[in-house]
């Protein structure tokens, strides 16, 4: 078991490294170096960067040195929590991102939880009552979930809300809490606003997980150990929940980890449509304005956050599947 968790942690570290390289590439991609763009940006707004200041910045990021040195220097800064300056906002990147990262996590986790809560029972029902009306309904909704890109779904829900209730669905806070300090009331307000974005973000993953759970469980239901359990005299509900569902949970849990990257991906674009104060709209603005430190940092943070989430879900798998727990090597 320790070996398994060790392997997962190692892979997570590798992934984080790969993400950091990719983020660095994104920062480096636009033509011209950061300091030159920074000076130009400052000049266009009337302020002047002194030559010493520019020199210090060049030294800090190793400009003019080989690319791997630049990467190392950047990483060193990142590791001590210095993500650079945002040119657009003229503030440290961490300041600009602020609570948006936490709100992104809140939305993603809510969507992931919703995926679990919905996909598990619906998948079980669909398999046990195969070809029933409910099964067909679940399959149909599942296909809608797979076929409608989540930003379109957001658009449609927004439109329907506007037309039917003349209400602007969207955002994560009511206007009076928008810029308020954190309090119980603000958290409650957030909680009230979460379901719709979570549902939109979670639907595609839920649809996929329902299909996986259904297919796995259908396979398991045919296995002889189910007959064994039944022949012991267990009630049907107990037979199904204790045996085939338990076995089918394993591939279910191992694939649900992969839904987190989807959800995080989706949150960017859905946030834009729904006007959620997450890092999504910020990333788009930063990319369009070529505010590369901000953009690179957001990509890095999203990646790291996803890796941590996936790691947690992998470790959960150990709890679900004793075969891994007992694995020795």
């Amino acid at each position, binding site marked *: 078991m320790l070996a398994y968790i060790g392997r997962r942690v190692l892979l997570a570290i590798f992934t984080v490294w790969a993400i950091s390289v990719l983020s660095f590439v994104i920062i480096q991609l636009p033509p011209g170096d950061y300091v030159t763009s920074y000076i130009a940006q400052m000049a266009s707004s009337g302020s002047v960067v002194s030559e010493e200041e520019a020199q210090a910045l060049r030294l800090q990021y190793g400009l003019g040195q080989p690319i791997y040195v630049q990467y190392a220097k950047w990483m060193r800064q990142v590791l001590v929590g210095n993500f650079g300056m945002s040119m657009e906002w003229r503030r440290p990147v961490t300041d600009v991102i602020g609570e948006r990262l936490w709100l992104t996590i809140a939305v993603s986790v809510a969507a992931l939880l919703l995926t679990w809560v919905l996909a598990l029972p619906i998948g079980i029902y669909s398999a046990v009552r195969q070809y029933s009306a409910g099964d067909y309904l679940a399959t149909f909704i599942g296909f809608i979930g797979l076929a409608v890109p989540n930003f379109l779904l957001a658009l449609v829900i927004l439109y329907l809300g506007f037309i039917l209730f003349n209400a602007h669905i969207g955002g994560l806070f009511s206007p009076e809490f928008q810029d308020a300090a954190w309090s119980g009331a603000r958290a409650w307000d957030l909680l009230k606003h979460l379901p719709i974005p979570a549902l939109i973000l979670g639907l595609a993953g839920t649809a996929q997980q329902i299909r996986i759970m259904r297919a796995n469980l259908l396979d398991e239901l045919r296995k*002889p150990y189910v007959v*064994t359990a039944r*022949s012991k005299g267990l009630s049907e509900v107990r037979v199904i929940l204790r045996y085939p569902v338990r076995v089918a949970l394993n591939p279910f849990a191992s694939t649900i980890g992969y839904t987190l990257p989807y959800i995080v991906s989706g949150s960017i674009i859905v946030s834009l449509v729904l006007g959620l104060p997450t890092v999504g709209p910020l990333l788009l603005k930063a990319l369009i304005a070529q505010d590369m430190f901000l953009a690179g940092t957001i990509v890095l943070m999203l990646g790291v956050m996803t890796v941590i989430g996936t790691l947690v879900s992998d470790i959960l798998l150990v709890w679900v599947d004793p075969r891994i727990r007992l694995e020795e090597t």
Partner: protein
Amino acid sequence: MTREPLLSVRNLKTYFIQDEGLVKAVDGVSFDVAEGVTLGIVGESGCGKSVTARSILRIVDRPGRIVEGEIHFRRPSANGGPGRTVDLATLEPNGAEMRAIRGAEIALIFQEPMSSFSPVHTIGSQIVEAIRLHQPGGRREARDKTIELLRRVGVSSPEERVDQLSNQLSGGMRQRAMIAMALSCHPTLLIADEPTTALDVTTQTQILELMRQLQQEDGMAIMLITHDLGVIATMATDVAVMYLGRVVEQAPVDAIFHAPLHPYTRALLRSIPRIRSRARLVPIAGAVPHPYDRPTGCPFHPRCAEFKAGTCDRQEPRLTRIGDHHTVSCFLYE
């Protein structure tokens, strides 16, 4: 024997209703199992042996269902008296009474020792579950009982095995554990569906020996389903021969081997090798017909050496009593 049999199946019909057509997997099976004896049920693959077993336990998978017939089972009574007889075919498959019988009074062991235990639960927890379901007592007590059972069926170092997963056990060990689970509640009837088919020959002999020994100790009746006449010869007291969902002949084991009546039984016996015999093996002509396409009349007539045109392909033979304990279903004896 004046006492009524433990299990008496009458005209049982289990059909599978599918889009492609109706499969009459079991089509009018009748046989008796007396207390404490072993009834061997023999027949080629696909003749409805397993479905018969599952019908008795009422665990036939959809779309199969019992459409006709009676399954009389005598439930044991607390004081050792004759007990009460119920018709299992009329019980609710998942009702309380059927579940109380299933596992406790009629137990099942079957072919695939590889996959008949859950891969994610320990052997012990699965046996403990069966014990606690039907017997009073706590977890601790059930666990001790489980270890005792495993020891009794010859599982080595049962204290360790009890906490292992099924894939850590060999096929023979798994089948022993399966037997331990089946016997955990002292059933009066044990249905063994091809218990040794998937095992190698040495293990096969050990498992059969174990079953016979346990039967002597506990006195339960065994319904042994197999396609192996050798297994029948060593284990069974009585034999029922099945063909295409019907019992074509039932008799004591000696009568089946030395004075078989039905042409199918005779053909079956001719197709097994014997030591010290130089006679050529004679395979049964043709193959078992497709279940969607059953022959009319006697189901065996297209392959029968003694086929009488106009009779065998028109009418269905009835099960006729020949001797005291010998019944056969063939026009030769009507």
